[in-house]
């Protein structure tokens, strides 16, 4: 009778690999409640500054709060979708409303005194220049 040749095919490493993969899949899976709340944002990066854009239609500039600390930018906004009048009944409501807070990790430390924010046509654009002290210094090599 032939004994199985473990050099050809061994099921045990295969099974432990499967187990590791399952563990990894369960660990990385994020249930719906953990998804970021609020409107999605885009992050832009230049050589010395970065910018964050968020689509916030119908939000007035007074309802937006932006704060910057080191390399973290926190954007807080509130939107109200109210009916046009008392005698109106809502037939369909797809637009979200409410308050949202989002903290973004910037690629470098930003200068809070030079951050500019502008909302135009319902799109908020926040430009944050890099902090002077954070810029890398060139080191000359002496020969």
């Amino acid at each position, binding site marked *: 009778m032939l004994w199985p040749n473990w050099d050809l095919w061994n099921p045990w490493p295969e099974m432990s690999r499967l187990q590791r993969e399952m563990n990894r899949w369960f660990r990385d899976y994020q249930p719906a409640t953990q998804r970021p709340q609020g409107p999605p944002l*885009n992050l832009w*990066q*230049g*050589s010395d500054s970065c910018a964050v854009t968020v689509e916030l239609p*119908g939000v007035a500039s007074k309802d937006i709060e932006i704060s910057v600390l080191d390399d973290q930018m926190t954007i807080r906004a509130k939107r109200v979708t109210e009916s046009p009048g008392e005698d109106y009944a809502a037939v369909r*409501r*797809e637009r979200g409303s409410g308050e949202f807070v989002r903290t973004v990790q910037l*690629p470098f430390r930003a200068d809070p005194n030079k951050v500019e924010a502008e909302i135009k046509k319902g799109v908020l*654009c926040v430009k944050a220049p890099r902090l002077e002290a954070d810029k890398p210094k060139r080191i000359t090599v002496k020969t």
Partner: protein
Amino acid sequence: MAEEKKDVVKREADVPSRAERTSSRPTFLPAVDIYESEKDTVLVADMPGVDDKSVNIELEGGVLTVTGEVSDEKCEGHDLVYAEYRVGDYQRSFRLADTVDRDKIGASVKNGVLRIVLPKAEQALPKKIQVNAG
């Protein structure tokens, strides 16, 4: 009953069958709130990036089509490193009821929100009928 949806992802617009879009930019369905009263219907659509010059409203054969053109989002000197949303045009069509007075439809755009007011036609307004005694 009106259902409230909390979708944060933009929905891609449908394309009529047997036709494809010629541009590579995506076209999205704007989120819409519809309110109705006795006198008119108000339609509010979220279209960030659109102003009164880039929106187009057409009424053809009882179908109201709203199109909004959005210019490419660009920050000078910056590259996009992380994107959670895409930028594209907006399009959505609605079939109007016969009760809408087609000549008096009004629309305005503010902060990327389009508001369309559709007044109901005179005949559709409820009329009080006088009841005489005897």
